[in-house]
């Protein structure tokens, strides 16, 4: 029997989490190296998955299936399609950078009890999140997915609430209050979303009798499982609500700016680049496949919400004084694009959305991590506290610029391709929506360039005059991300090749065909 590759990919970080947590308090550095090692091992496994995956093969590959909780009709069923493979690869790729970037974020400030081991906890929690995220990308059983979708909130919650930026203008006490507020807000929003989804999951079981994604989709396709229109719509809404909180979609987005602002930069990357992707991924995998008719029924409303997210997120990003909050609102705008691409119901839109998830992960990671390095040097998140950094720290400023340009989707950098695909895909079916969404791009140029201008250009502020440039560790984090951004901007084919067949199948599930070009219709 061969090794169950998908289980191994998720189990390795889980084992790493336990091993890291078990490192004695004094051996902090060992814990860090151990976490890095496990995250690299997971990356190796994820690459193996990528290699073993055949884009033109079966829909779900590398499948595993074991009985788990018979009474609930739950099976331990894993399988990946192209979309999942791409996102697993993204997750496994980002975690080592997150670990490296957060190398000193959890060094204990004061000595507490001898059993108090924040460093070990920090890295163990990151690995635990990785394991659960990977499992939720792999699960093809709705219940199994739900379990990890919910359970990942707990380590995430401790990461947000337990660790924050070191320097804070109002002192540690205020900082910790704000942090725990942000953590609780994060948890409550997501928990409420998840519990509403739980009601829908139970409803799905009552209707379908089991939780297997493939079986339900098959049964719906051949007509053996008939869902009343109203039932389907309610269930769809239950699922979509949870994913919209996670994604986050306006008006359920308000937890994200708080969480990203208060968390350390690596954790903020973990939230927006990794964990939130589960929400948009799940819309593609579960909402569209399980409830195709209800998805089409809800499309107009969702597109409007996505449009609001795009424009509103971008507008608020323009007005932010806090660097991390700005990036958070920019992310909300980008998630609007992703959701718009998914629900445009065209193959370009959905390929673009999937590609967008990958590219947004990389570009946000680059921008946010460099911002984090910057903040750790000056001890302030406020944009107004910076100025002229490019003269003292040119490499830092340069990578910051590339991250920013990627965020505004400059042609030649990876996000451009995906944003273009999403817009084209949306435009062919909903021209008005596509046009309005374009304003999001214009605003993106405004907020990123203004951010760069205010922090990096102009006269050197006295507080930043002694700022050191990127250190070796930080360069190791940023350089590969920048290379990837450029590479995928010029040559996105490797990702689209993997993603496209899966998107085609999803499209056929919702029984949508791409609109024919006007010229052909006129013939």
């Amino acid at each position, binding site marked *: 029997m061969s090794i169950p590759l998908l289980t191994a990919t998720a189990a390795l970080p889980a084992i790493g989490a336990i091993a890291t947590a078990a490192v004695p308090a004094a051996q902090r550095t060992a814990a860090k190296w151990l976490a890095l090692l496990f995250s690299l091992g997971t990356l190796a496994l994820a690459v193996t998955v990528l290699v073993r995956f055949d884009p033109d093969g079966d829909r779900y590959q590398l499948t595993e299936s074991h009985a788990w909780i018979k009474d609930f009709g739950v099976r331990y069923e894993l399988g990946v399609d192209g979309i999942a493979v791409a996102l697993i690869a993204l997750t496994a790729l980002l975690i080592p950078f997150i670990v490296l970037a957060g190398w000193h974020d959890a060094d204990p400030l004061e000595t507490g009890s001898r059993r108090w081991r924040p460093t070990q906890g920090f890295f163990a929690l990151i690995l635990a999140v990785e394991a659960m995220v990977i499992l939720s990308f792999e699960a093809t059983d709705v219940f199994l997915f739900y*379990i990890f979708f919910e*359970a990942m909130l*707990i380590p995430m919650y401790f990461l947000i609430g337990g660790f924050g930026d070191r320097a804070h203008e109002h002192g540690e006490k205020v900082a*910790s209050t704000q942090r725990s507020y942000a953590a609780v807000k994060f948890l409550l929003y997501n928990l409420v979303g998840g*519990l509403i989804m739980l009601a829908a999951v*139970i409803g799905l079981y*009552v209707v379908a009798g089991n939780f297997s994604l493939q079986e339900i989709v098959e049964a719906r396709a051949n007509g053996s499982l008939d869902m009343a229109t109203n039932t389907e719509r309610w269930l769809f809404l239950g699922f979509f609500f949870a994913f919209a909180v996670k994604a986050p979609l306006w008006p359920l987005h308000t937890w994200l700016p708080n969480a990203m602002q208060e968390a350390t930069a690596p954790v903020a990357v973990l939230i927006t680049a990794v964990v939130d992707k589960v929400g948009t991924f799940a819309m593609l995998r579960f909402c569209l496949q399980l409830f195709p008719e209800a998805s089409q029924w809800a499309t107009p409303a969702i597109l409007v919400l996505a449009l609001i997210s795009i424009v509103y997120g971008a507008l608020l990003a323009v007005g932010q004084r806090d660097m991390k909050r700005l990036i958070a609102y920019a992310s909300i705008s980008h998630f609007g694009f992703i959701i718009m691409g998914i629900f445009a119901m065209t193959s370009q839109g959905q390929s673009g959305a999937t590609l967008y998830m990958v590219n947004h992960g990389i570009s946000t990671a680059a921008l946010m991590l460099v911002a984090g390095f910057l903040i750790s040097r000056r001890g302030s998140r406020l944009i107004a506290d910076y100025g002229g950094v490019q003269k003292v720290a040119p490499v830092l400023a340069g990578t910051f610029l590339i991250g920013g340009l990627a965020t505004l989707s400059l042609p030649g950098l990876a996000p451009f391709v995906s944003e273009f695909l999403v817009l084209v895909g949306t435009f062919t079916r909903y021209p008005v929506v596509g046009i309005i969404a374009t304003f999001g791009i214009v605003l993106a140029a405004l907020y990123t360039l203004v951010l760069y201008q205010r922090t990096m250009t102009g006269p050197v502020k006295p507080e930043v005059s002694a700022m050191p440039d990127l250190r070796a560790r930080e360069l190791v984090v940023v350089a590969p991300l920048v290379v990837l951004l450029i590479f995928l901007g010029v040559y996105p084919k490797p990702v689209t090749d993997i993603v496209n067949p899966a998107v085609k199948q999803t499209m056929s599930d919702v029984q949508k065909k791409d609109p024919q070009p006007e010229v052909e219709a006129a013939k």
Partner: protein
Amino acid sequence: MSASAVHSLWTTAADPISKIDAPKIEYGQLSPTLIVVGAAVVGVLIEAVVPRKARYYAQVFISAVALIAAFAAVVALAAGGYATTKSGIAAMGAIAVDGPALFLQGTILLAGLVGLFTFAERRLDPAAHGNRVDSFAAQAASVPGSDSEKAAVKAGFTTTEVFPLLMFAVAGMLVFPAANDLLTLFIALEVFSLPLYLMCALARRKRLMSQEAAVKYFLLGAFASAFTLFGIALLYGYSGSVSYATIAQVVDGTIPDITPALADTMGNDALLLVGAAMIVMGLLFKVGAVPFHMWTPDVYQGAPTPVTGFMAAATKVAAFGALLRLLYVVLPGLRWDWRPVMWGVAIVTMLGGAIVAITQTDIKRLLAYSSIAHAGFILAGVIATTPSGVSSVLFYLGAYSFVTIGAFAVVTLVRDAGGEATHLSKWAGLGRRSPLVAAVFAVFLLAFAGIPLTSGFAGKFAVFKAAAEGGAGPLVVVGVISSAIAAFFYIRVIVLMFFSEPKPEGPTVAVPSPLTMTAIGVGVAVTLVLGVAPQYFLDLASQAGVFVR
């Protein structure tokens, strides 16, 4: 009456007394209860004859052996097929030996055993005058603050009577869900309630509060018992019998021979409805459902914490068992009448418990309100009226009781100069001072909140699934909403423990003996095992889900 009938009546009565059959007692089937009652009686004798120094060890030993033996007897009965293929009605129709009864008895015995460990803990309180002491008053009869109390403390007295009391309570609880007629039900109710009232009054610290709690519990409990008894009388008046099977037949209208007297009364629905409502009311009081929950917070707070933990777990198991049997065996014919009422009770219980818990500042009161909310969740499973409803309730009770005992055991560890530090503000920063204890408590809280991969989630999913299948979809939605509300206050405690700065004069965490460690360890193990691999226990519960009638 014909002459021959009178004649036969007369000749029968004149038969020699030796020919009257003695009641047939199935000792084997009743052995779990008998063993525990026997241990309780031996415990009383120990109090009378064994020297004071040796009593503690003798009592703990006898109690533990009895509970383990009784559990072994339950397992043997279940292995003998009583839970699955056959079932018995023992002691002249008074006790049912069937799946639900054995499952709940097993749960109560294990909960009792774990509870016993917390009762026997003697390392937490600082030694008084060189004597190790437990959580119970030195001498219950001495007036709080009086000289006689001081003398008792100085002499190193301990109230070892709690062990036989515990055994009596367990014995009553074993009979309660197995009772197959209304009189047995009532007697079992009293047998387990009276020792609980007493034990509530026995706290070593804050004795006045403890006694106040006991009085409240006793008074309200006495009212509830009176209601139950009145209900029993009405149902007897309605059906002419106290036997579950006969009443059920009368309710269904399937009873074979209708005497003229019965024909008179069985048309009187008022007797039936009022009687049933009063009995159910008494049972809802015991499970702590809104609006019969008023006693819960005060009693949970005032009682010695080991008693609270035991009571919160085992009473709920026993009372829900009795409620299930009453509703599913006696009153299924009436379900169109009781289901709407129970819907209302379940909704207000879930929401009421969760909402009021938000404002609590004492950890024991908070857990009390959380237990009310949980009673509501379990009621949702009761309302399903399907076999999966029964098995889901059984599973939930098993999962819930160990988490509860474990959580209260952790509460006993966090102490300051005044004893247990139950005010929430004192728990601030506990995660920094003792990460392990805080982490364990966080696991329990997450299980209460029903986070996946804990037993709480599996249980909640089971009851909600049963409710949804049983046509109670809206109840599931209310349940989900109240879970969200409940999650808020569980998380508030976690925030307090992990994200707040520890106070300089905060409480210390006592290092317990292996007894309490076992109780907590069992709680954690059950929480995780039932969360990750619940299949075996779900099978057990669904095999045990058929009532005998």
